[in-house]
């Protein structure tokens, strides 16, 4: 017989080792560690791809438009106006008074001014016909603002390579100022050789642009609202979480999902449009929690047991009983899960009649902001803040089918169906995957940009 103290208990408990399936457990651990590392890797890859895609898209939208605008409003106009001026000098040379030096340009002011008037009005007519965005800034009556070509590279007869370099200059209110500035143009002699065909080329270029624009589905800006019915799935990856998750699922009723999307659609081909925008969403569910708070307490009773064992010794055991108190409470609450993120996707559109077209699109939603308001049952089976269980970001994919109805020249009414599915879990636990799918309707307006 010996006495047992804490240390002896400790030694006894630590010394006991039982066999277990060491290899089998290791295989599970190894696979889960690998899976987790792979998952982290994929998260980073997806994030990188999304970031790069967004940057590329923004670059494409911003810089392509800027280049087109520059091409129309500056380069062509200036070259053409300058060439118009040069034509009059060519005409002058045909009459036998060709200026041999640039200084002599000033002597042909009368002729040049009449040709500038003619060229300007012709240019305005062509631009009106083609619907080009270029701003004609030169006029004979009131010259406002004009860029002057400083250096233009001309290859062959009429081929212009690269954007011209400009020197921006403000002129007075008289076109005479413009004419006086002509001697500043370098390489004017080259214009004299090239200009006869520039005007006809100008007309051809504008015509081609006009035709191309008419054949393409225009880019657009759209505002759409969605209302759908969500269905939440709970997937447990660990046996010990099963009852908790089962409780959470049983207590929750999915109600509805609301969303608003603002998108910019960039027409890439006649029917295909690239979509990018912002999306705000809210999912609502109702939680009915009916839980029992059980407390147990051991209390002494009046009864007792008196025993005589086999050695003839008497043993006295005082009676005990366990008092159990059960408190049942029911709570009902509406939980809201908010998401804010960017969307990136593509849309295919087909014209059915003059006013009606149908579309189908697929969009990837990355929500860097996701937060929840409401209550949930925590791991200790107590009511707790819902927000602490939700992950801070999410990834989802959606597809839509619908129709566009043309209300007027620039505005369409959009209506259709949308299916949305979560890719990542709404919960921040790696052992519980909570995803939601929703199917609903969308309604919105689309403003076509020409």
């Amino acid at each position, binding site marked *: 017989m*010996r*006495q047992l*103290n804490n240390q002896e*208990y400790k030694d006894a*408990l*630590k010394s*006991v080792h039982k066999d277990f399936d060491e290899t089998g457990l290791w295989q599970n*651990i*190894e696979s889960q560690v690998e899976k987790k590392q792979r998952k982290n890797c994929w998260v980073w890859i997806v994030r990188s791809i999304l970031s790069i895609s967004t940057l590329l898209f923004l670059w494409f939208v911003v810089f392509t438009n800027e280049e087109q605008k520059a091409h129309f409003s500056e380069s062509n106009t200036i070259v053409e106006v300058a060439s118009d001026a040069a034509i009059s000098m060519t005409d002058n040379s045909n009459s036998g008074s060709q200026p041999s030096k640039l200084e002599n340009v000033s002597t042909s002011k009368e002729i040049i001014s009449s040709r500038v008037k003619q060229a300007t009005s012709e240019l305005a007519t062509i631009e009106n016909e083609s619907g080009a965005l270029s701003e004609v800034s030169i006029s004979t009556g009131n010259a406002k603002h004009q860029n002057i070509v400083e250096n233009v590279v001309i290859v062959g007869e009429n081929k212009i390579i690269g954007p011209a370099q400009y020197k921006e200059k403000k002129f007075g209110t008289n076109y005479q100022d413009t004419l006086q500035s002509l001697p500043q143009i370098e390489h004017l002699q080259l214009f004299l050789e090239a200009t006869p065909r520039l005007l006809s080329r100008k007309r051809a270029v504008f015509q081609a642009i006009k035709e191309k624009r008419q054949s393409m589905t225009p880019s657009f800006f759209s505002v759409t609202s969605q209302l759908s019915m969500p269905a939440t799935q709970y997937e447990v990856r660990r046996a*010990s979480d099963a009852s908790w998750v089962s409780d959470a699922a049983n207590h929750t009723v999915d109600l509805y999902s609301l969303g608003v999307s603002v998108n910019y659609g960039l027409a890439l081909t006649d029917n295909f449009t690239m979509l990018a925008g912002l999306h705000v969403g809210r999912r609502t569910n109702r939680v009915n929690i009916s839980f029992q708070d059980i407390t147990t307490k051991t209390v002494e009773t009046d009864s007792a047991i008196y025993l005589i064992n086999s050695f003839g010794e008497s043993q006295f055991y005082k009676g005990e009983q366990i008092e159990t108190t059960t408190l049942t409470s029911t709570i009902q609450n509406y939980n809201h899960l908010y998401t804010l993120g960017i969307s990136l996707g593509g849309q295919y559109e087909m014209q059915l009649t003059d006013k009606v077209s149908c579309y189908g699109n697929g969009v990837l939603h990355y929500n860097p902001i996701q937060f929840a308001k409401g209550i949930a049952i925590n791991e200790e089976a107590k009511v707790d803040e819902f927000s602490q269980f939700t992950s801070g970001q999410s990834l989802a994919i959606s597809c839509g089918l619908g129709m566009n109805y043309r209300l007027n020249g620039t505005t369409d009414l959009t209506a259709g169906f949308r299916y949305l599915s979560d890719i990542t879990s709404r919960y921040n636990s790696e052992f519980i995957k909570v995803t939601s799918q929703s199917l609903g309707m969308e309604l919105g307006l689309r403003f076509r940009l020409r």
Partner: protein
Amino acid sequence: MLRLQHIWQKVLKGDANAQRKLYQMTSAEIMNICRRYLSKQEFCQDAFQETYIKVFTKSAHYNSKKGTLSAWMAKVAVNECLQILRKQKKLVLLDVISDVHSPTTDEDVISDLSAEEIYAEVARLADGYRTIFNLYVVEGYNHNEIGEMLGISPVSSRSQLSRAKLILKEAIRKKTKTVSYEAAQ
């Protein structure tokens, strides 16, 4: 110890062989911890696996200045076990002070039982009692720390430990007498 540190350096770099070696060196101890807290085998294995997953994926959290690697791993294992007990709602702890007479085990528990038999008697304790008993007696936490871990007051922890020891004492005494009686027969 040096070998363990050497292996740990490789684990930090994500070396799969080092992870396996570390597992082989420590798995018996970790499984022993899990078994002391969780009686059901499936939960015990869950806690065991989760401990190693956390050790390998959150290895950067270990600070050698705060304690040994074994102690850190044991702490991770204990936390996993407590988490599972909470989820299973088995950790019903009474935050009340019992009036039960609190004997000190150092003076009145007398036993000739083997380690396995003592282990079995401890395993028969209710989850709450067994948890506090293990945390205090085996892991060496004080009542303040146990109170924080389990969300109860230190006084309640002390009271529950006394109760656990009392039950254990009675169980061991009965067992001892039965063994003695059988030996006498």
